[in-house]
């Protein structure tokens, strides 16, 4: 394989890396706690976050294809390994693009909310709850729990609701 062909595969890999890195890093940068978000940058970050889930997969496939092609080009071994590592990084970014860091690292979700009678929960009388009543069914969501989980997907009195705090 000619030098220009090897260069082309490297450029493909670098382009994949740049696209995938931007798809992951920009939303993480914009949508982070204790930072003011502008309306336009937020809108862009959310669009990039959504399309990044597909884009990074396409990018990973292209990076792997480029790495395979480069590997077959019989370049020096350290260069082939570097290119392979680059392709692995692009694949890792494809996984990260689908990760919910808020739930993974900060506030674990309520996977299967469970409920009990008032007498069977550990709450003080002056604990605060978010209370709803639908179709005769009354439900309380303790704020000390909701301030951690933030979202509870529930069905109360036959109505599907999301309690949020």
């Amino acid at each position, binding site marked *: 394989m000619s030098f220009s062909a090897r260069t082309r595969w490297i450029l493909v890999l670098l382009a994949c890396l740049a696209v995938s890195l931007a798809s992951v890093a920009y939303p993480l940068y914009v*949508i982070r706690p204790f930072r003011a978000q502008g309306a336009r940058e937020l809108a862009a970050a959310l669009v990039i976050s959504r399309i990044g*889930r597909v884009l990074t997969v396409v990018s990973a496939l292209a990076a792997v294809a480029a790495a395979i092609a480069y590997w077959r080009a019989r370049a020096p071994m350290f260069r082939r390994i570097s290119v392979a590592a680059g392709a692995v990084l692009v694949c890792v970014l494809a996984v990260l693009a689908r990760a919910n860091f808020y739930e993974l690292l900060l506030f674990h979700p309520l996977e299967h909310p469970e409920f009990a009678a008032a007498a069977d929960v550990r*709450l003080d009388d002056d604990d605060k709850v978010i209370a709803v009543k639908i179709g005769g069914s009354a439900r309380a969501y303790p704020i000390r729990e909701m301030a951690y989980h933030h979202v509870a997907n529930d069905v109360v009195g036959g109505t599907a609701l999301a309690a949020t705090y």
Partner: protein
Amino acid sequence: MRNVDGRRLTFHLAGINNQNFLMRDEETGSYWQQISGLAISGPLKGRQLTLVLSDELNFATWKAEEPAGTVLKEVAKYASGYETKDWDMRMRHAAAVIQFPEHGMQSRDLVLGIQTAGASRAFLYDRVIAEMLVKSYLGTQPVLLVVGPDGQSVRAFRDRIPGVDGVPDFYRLNMDQPGAPSLMIDAATGSQWNFQGCAISGSAKGACLERIPMLKDYWFNWRNYNPSTTIWGSGTR
């Protein structure tokens, strides 16, 4: 409610926007703003979730009203990360990334926000608690904010008694008897009313005032999503 176009959505915490969190639904990948229930990005952009009427109450008050109710159980493996009971008060000292220092308001002043009749108003929580009963107008709608027997829970009602003309005057009762079933009386019918806004004696017995949705929030967040809001209670701090 989390049904949109007949489809049940499952929401996850997915980010933050000026310290109000974003949700993402599993089914379409759309992003929703928590405070407004509005989809701001994705296939369902522009759709609005229907708000379910809710209260923020002391557990004792809720138990007394709903003895057969059920409570979300804690998840043992995460319980060490749960907040303390005065979390909202402690957070008043945390920094805010956006500020609206109007009328002497501090970013994390606790307010009770009401949107109705095309108007919005933030009622300063500490002042409402001190007053125990607040009468006000939003647009053309008379509203009533009532503090519960626990001295912390607050509900909002439309200040109209079914079948009675005009705007009745309500007065607080039994402030030195926290366990008393009635906590206000109206001048129009002489009926006594409980914290659920229902008359338990007098000619209006059995009637209930219409509940108005109300949000307990920090000033900066309420103001950010209600730019034309007015404020009640900031003048005497």
